[in-house]
């Protein structure tokens, strides 16, 4: 048999039908739904009298709009947001799909809830009307974002009309150095490929440094595959994956678990399988990184300086000038001299327990800089509860952080958590687009530990220097 990649294998196992021109009908094992990109899809079903074909494979949770302040049970949601959340409540009930309402402790960001509840398992196809669905690829599942029309298509048919993408391998060899995290890997890769480098590809991340990551770290890496243009990122499942899945509420049990395990162990890229593109980066060469511009590809090691438009070519020259104007930065300025007034720790990229542990380790016994607004928004109610149990919440509160309820929050600022014009934020989220965190707001993407360091010093900071001081 022809040597196949992990992507080839999962794809092959989900083809319902293939047309002569290569267009496939692909079966979807898990469909995750949130309040912002689904109302028009459910409305479409109602208008055509269609049902949800597989409600038992469909899971909904409100996350984008929900306030994360402690008083959210008493309102605090604006009228439009409330209508969207209410619509999801109603749609979940009317169509009989699994649902975690705002009041449920299991509520949280859809990409954190899915794995946490054991909905996401190796070898599955997973879709959601959200581009960060790539996160679930960390389990060796083929997971990608879709638009609302496709949400409706999956609701009605449990399939998608797809053409197969190309295979890309991103290998991170060796080990990461101290202070360097999964976030730095994924951002460094985007810096290397550019935001369109992965367009048309599914990326498989591999190599020793990837193997050495926890499941949380692997989710961070796959989460940002989309920022590199790839709809999906994958990591072959291994013992860490199986250990993470075991015992989760919706993971198989007993004999079914054993059968699943046997199958999951076949999910790896065969020796000699063909990749259309290969990128190799040495783990030791990766530094803690930050973004300086308004595209996730605008990445530099924290030791760098702000570039000039003239350092670039083609269409990027104008884009960089526009970025620098928007960000209020001068070429040649040291990145560590960039002052920060807001810190956001959270999102589907970095809102898991390991991220909170990393930030808390930096913040323990320290205070945030005067005038700093800093918040931690756990990725789910369960992450929040665990962080409280581990004493992390108290560390954040003692340092001067706000300790919030779960949601997407300031990653996309659809709820009241927004930047004001000119405010500058160190954020553990995934996009630094113009206006992303609030009109005129300026975003620097970085790891949770780096965000915590910036909260203390008031400027972008090399976490390694802070670690050296601590010794």
């Amino acid at each position, binding site marked *: 048999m022809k040597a196949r990649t992990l992507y080839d294998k999962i794809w092959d*196992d989900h083809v*319902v*039908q293939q*047309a002569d*021109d290569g*267009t496939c*009908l692909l*079966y979807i*094992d898990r469909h995750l739904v949130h309040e*912002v*990109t689904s109302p*028009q899809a459910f*409305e479409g079903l109602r208008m*055509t009298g*269609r049902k949800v*074909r597989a409600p038992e494979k469909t899971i909904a949770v409100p996350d984008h709009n929900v306030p994360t302040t402690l008083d959210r049970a008493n309102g605090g949601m604006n009228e439009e947001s409330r*209508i*969207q959340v209410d619509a999801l409540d109603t749609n979940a009930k009317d169509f009989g799909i699994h649902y975690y309402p705002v009041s449920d402790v299991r509520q949280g960001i859809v990409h954190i809830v899915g794995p946490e509840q054991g909905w996401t*398992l190796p070898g*599955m196809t997973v879709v959601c*009307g*959200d*581009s960060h669905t790539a996160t679930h690829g960390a389990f060796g599942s083929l997971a*990608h974002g*879709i*638009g*609302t*029309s*496709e949400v*409706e*298509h999956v609701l009605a*048919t*449990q*399939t998608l*009309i797809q*053409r197969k993408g190309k295979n890309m391998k991103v290998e991170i060899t060796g080990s990461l150095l101290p202070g360097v995290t999964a976030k730095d890997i994924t951002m460094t890769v985007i810096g290397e490929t550019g*935001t*369109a480098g992965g*367009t048309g590809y599914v990326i498989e991340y591999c190599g020793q440094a990837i193997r050495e990551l926890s499941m949380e770290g692997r989710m961070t890496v796959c989460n940002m595959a*989309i920022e590199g*243009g790839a*709809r999906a990122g994958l990591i072959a499942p291994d013992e860490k994956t199986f250990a993470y899945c075991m015992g989760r509420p919706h993971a*198989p049990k007993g004999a*079914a*678990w054993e*059968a*699943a395990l046997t*199958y999951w162990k076949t999910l790896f890229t065969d020796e000699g399988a063909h990749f259309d593109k290969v990128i190799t980066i040495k783990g030791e060469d990766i530094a803690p990184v930050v973004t300086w511009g308004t595209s996730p590809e605008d990445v530099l090691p924290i030791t760098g300086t702000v570039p000039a438009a003239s350092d670039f070519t*083609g*269409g990027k020259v*104008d*884009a960089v000038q*526009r970025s620098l104007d928007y960000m209020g930065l001068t070429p040649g300025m040291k990145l560590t001299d960039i002052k920060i007034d807001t810190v956001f720790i959270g999102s589907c990229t970095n809102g898991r327990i390991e991220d909170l542990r990393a930030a808390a380790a930096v913040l323990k016994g320290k205070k945030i800089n005067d005038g700093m607004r800093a918040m931690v928004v756990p990725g789910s109610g369960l992450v929040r509860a665990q962080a409280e149990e581990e004493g992390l919440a108290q560390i954040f509160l003692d340092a001067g952080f706000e300790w919030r309820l779960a949601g997407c929050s300031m990653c996309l600022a*659809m709820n009241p958590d927004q930047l004001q*014009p000119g405010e500058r934020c160190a954020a553990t989220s995934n*996009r630094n*687009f*113009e*206006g992303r965190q609030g*009109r005129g707001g300026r975003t620097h993407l970085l790891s949770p530990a780096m965000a915590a360091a910036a909260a203390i010093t008031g400027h972008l900071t090399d976490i390694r220097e802070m670690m050296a001081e601590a010794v």
Partner: protein
Amino acid sequence: MEKFTKLTGVAAPMPLVNIDTDMIIPKQFLKTIKRSGLGANLFDEMRFNLDGTEIADFVLNKPAYRRAEIIVAGENFGCGSSREHAPWALLDFGIRAVIATSFADIFYNNCFKNGILPIVMPEDVVNALMEDAQRGANARITVDLEEQTVTASDGQTYPFEVDAFKRHCMMNGLDDIGLTMEKAASIDSYEAKASTLRPWV
């Protein structure tokens, strides 16, 4: 979905790379539960000042381009979020085709579901069409999906590639959910087979 066969209209030049979906329709307008009405806020933060007045030098505010039906843009158009509100906003404004050297995958797909034709052209062609678009309302560009060509105002014609199935659906305004539902028997038999092979799913 509205059919798309052939269109002649004004093209707005947007010579910027990485035009993302947050630019096309900022998040504060995603709170709708409808598909319509988003055109008023297309490119909102580039198009309007904070007080709601127009930013005069933004292309779609210039008299020549207020009724543009085509956009010519730099590479990686539509990158970022999966929000279908982006094509809904374009469509509601009246944009029926976007020409660029490349598009982000999810946005590209979303366009076809809404009767907007995204056209990938090589850089020299995009540059020529950009120059043409910069001439204003008198330079009308023709997009012909049946022939798979774009014709500039000087009569120069450029061919483009498009997936045959997507083209077929778009030219006939087909609802692909309906088409897939006709294959219900295949989906049934796939499910039956999968439930034996992978019963835990």
